[in-house]
């Protein structure tokens, strides 16, 4: 393996690892903020004592996750220069701006106000303290916005010109209002709500099942988390659908690839399963739902959807000879199905949990076994998030910036394979090691913390 493929692998591992924590930060920060708002507005002394403990309880889980997200975010920022120097040169005029703005307008407030929130319980008034966590939540989500502005340019360049072989910014407003950002940001935002909410559901369910003295309060959080997660899931599905329709214009190659549609068809069928033969550029076997893909794209059972082979021909005309098909159509196809499948499964789980905690509240005791097993479901949102990003980034290949620069020429020319091997192994090892310790610390904390009236 050469420095290019190793650098790609390293970036992929770092991104996926980083994005295990980011959605929790996005979603759980808002949930904790809501919880604290509830706390400061509560008038009953007993309830206040318990609510404060709850805020600190979920706040601690949030903080462990936040720390992991922050440190891996730094790695991301450094990677663009370390491994992708030619990308940084080519794109710096455009890509650097949202990155710097992220640090300046979002990351600074996030990191400063999180310190105030952690240590400010006795030093700030209740309202100011609560405001701090809202600012953290705002900063985190603003930070995600800037990063997705940067990423959206790579997926769908706008507001630029090419001068002296470099992409230069001509219109900042266009960069920020890139229609691609709308789909990506809303999808990521609601994925954050879903992930954060689902985490609260799982933790609450487990506490209800295993911790009798704290049960009452966790029934309250699980009910709120169910509603919160439902909002998230509906948002994810809606924004995902909208974004896929938009892809038909903005990046049809990506859309056709994750549906493994090789030939242009009208009406186009939806492949439920397919045995993809990338070399021959066709599916050796497929089970189809007629007209369905057309319906998904056009809201009507007729309508043309472009296939990969035609798009490849168009790309050759536009960019000259080359292979413009993402090199892992099979992986994208199955990732997309995994994402949709996991999303649907989560919706079902949340609805069933909702029925239990809202309508059969008095019978909860009979279902403790089920609730106790809920932590086994915790990987679901993380799987969906990871495969989602896989589709987004693998679907951009062979480009690093669609139509402007190929991944193969973006890598730092001074790196040897051995150097990248060393760092790849080093980063992966420390990620795994810290994940184990962080999860261990979080689980032990969740186990031993009781939410009772005792101060």
């Amino acid at each position: 393996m050469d420095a290019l493929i190793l650098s790609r692998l390293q970036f992929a591992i770092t991104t996926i690892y980083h994005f295990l924590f980011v959605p929790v930060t996005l979603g759980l920060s808002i949930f904790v903020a809501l919880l604290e708002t509830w706390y400061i507005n509560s008038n009953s002394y007993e309830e206040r004592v318990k609510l404060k403990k709850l805020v600190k309880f979920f706040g601690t889980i949030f903080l462990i996750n936040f720390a992991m997200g922050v440190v891996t975010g730094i790695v991301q920022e450094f990677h663009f220069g370390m491994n992708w120097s030619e990308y940084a040169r080519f794109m710096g005029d455009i890509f650097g701006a949202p990155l710097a703005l992220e640090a300046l307008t979002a990351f600074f407030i996030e990191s400063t106000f999180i310190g105030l929130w952690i240590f400010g319980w006795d030093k700030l008034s209740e309202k100011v303290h609560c405001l701090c966590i809202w600012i953290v939540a705002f900063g985190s989500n603003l930070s995600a916005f800037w990063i997705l502005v940067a990423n959206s340019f790579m997926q769908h360049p706008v507001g630029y010109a090419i001068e002296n072989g470099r992409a230069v910014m001509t219109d900042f407003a266009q960069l920020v209002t890139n229609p691609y950002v709308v789909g990506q940001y809303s999808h990521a935002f609601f994925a954050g709500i879903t992930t954060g909410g689902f985490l609260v559901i799982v933790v609450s369910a487990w506490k209800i099942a295993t911790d009798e003295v704290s049960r009452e309060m966790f029934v309250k959080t699980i009910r709120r988390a169910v509603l919160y997660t439902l909002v998230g899931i509906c948002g994810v599905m809606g924004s995902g659908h909208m974004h896929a329709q938009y892809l038909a214009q903005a990046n049809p190659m990506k859309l056709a690839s994750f549906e493994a549609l090789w030939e242009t068809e009208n009406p186009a069928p939806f492949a439920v399963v397919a045995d993809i033969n990338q070399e021959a550029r066709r599916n050796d076997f497929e089970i189809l739902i007629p007209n369905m893909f057309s319906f998904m794209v056009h809201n009507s059972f007729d309508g043309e959807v472009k296939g990969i082979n035609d798009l490849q021909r168009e790309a050759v005309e536009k960019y000259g000879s080359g292979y413009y098909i993402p090199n892992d159509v099979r992986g994208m196809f199955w990732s997309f199905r995994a994402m949709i499948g996991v999303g649907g499964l989560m919706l079902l789980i949340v609805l069933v949990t909702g029925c239990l905690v809202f309508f059969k509240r008095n019978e909860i005791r009979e279902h403790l076994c089920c609730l106790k097993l809920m932590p086994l479901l915790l990987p679901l949102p993380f799987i969906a998030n990871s495969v989602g990003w896989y589709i987004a980034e693998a679907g951009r290949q062979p480009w690093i910036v669609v139509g402007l620069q190929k991944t193969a020429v973006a890598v730092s020319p001074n790196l040897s394979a051995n150097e990248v091997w060393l760092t790849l192994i080093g980063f992966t090892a420390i990620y795994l090691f810290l994940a184990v310790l962080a999860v261990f610390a979080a689980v032990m904390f969740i186990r031993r913390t009781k939410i009772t009236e005792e101060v």
Partner: protein
Amino acid sequence: MDLNIIWFILITVLFTGFFILEGFDYGVGMMMFGRPKNERSQFVRAIGPVWDGNEVWMITAGGALFAAFPHVYATMFSTFYLALFLMLLALIMRGVAFELRGKFKTSDWVNFWDCGIMFGSFVPALLWGVAVTNLLRGVAINYQMHYVGTFLDLLNPCAIVGGIFFVFLFAFHGANFLLIKIADEKLLNELQKLSFRLGLNTIFAFVLFGLAAAHDTDILAKISTVIFLGLSIAALIASCAGAKAGNGCKAFLSSTLAVAFLTIGFFNALFPRLMVSSLSPNLSLDIYNAASTPHTLTLMTIAALIFVPIVLCYQFWTYRVFRARVTPQDVNYH
């Protein structure tokens, strides 16, 4: 004054902020070496509320470099590949350690993470010294702005002296920060003595570094740089005197000035270059051949002029909220 010069100044400001603020964070981390657990906890508590916000100065400096001088960002980060890898490992350990060390009370757990904080503070301090010296000294940058040297080229004697100097400087600066943050009288007495000794060592390392740099670089070519470095040494001496006299405020403010003058001196020596090429002076990256377009620079100037003062305001407020000294009781409670 054109936009490129404004951005050179802004980058200098960001690095100055970074070295001042993260400087004492790294220093406090290094001061934990060989200290008993309850003292280490007080040290961690002293920087606990602010270290994360301080670290963003580095992130912002990096991001601003990317936005304003993309070629510098690209060449610098790929040149220092393995060094930055080590630094990232250190920063990852350090960041997680601050969060996790308090999650269990057992000695093994706390000791492990405290080692992470010490390692995570020492390594970046050392590597930033090495990196900054190499920027001044010049690295093998070819006509394509690619680094053509090896990792070992970066570990030349001059750069290593620079690294050791930064370690002492930040440790001293961190010790001075503790002088204004620790309440326990007995501990404070010990820290004063330690700080004074560290200060003397820092001055010694500075002189050593100055000699090495005078030999290897053109740092003394400009009279203005000599003045800045002179002011930095003077501030260090004042800081030492402050530590000796038990005046923590004077010691800390003086070491803050010392770090600031030093950083300004470095950038002044570099100006208008940002990375010196050791192959030929024509190949150095400067504020013109490495810059973004005027459009992007204008945009970023507006953003910086609005947001940097806002950041300074709320960070200043944070320091005010947490201005009280840390008592041994504080750490038992948290």
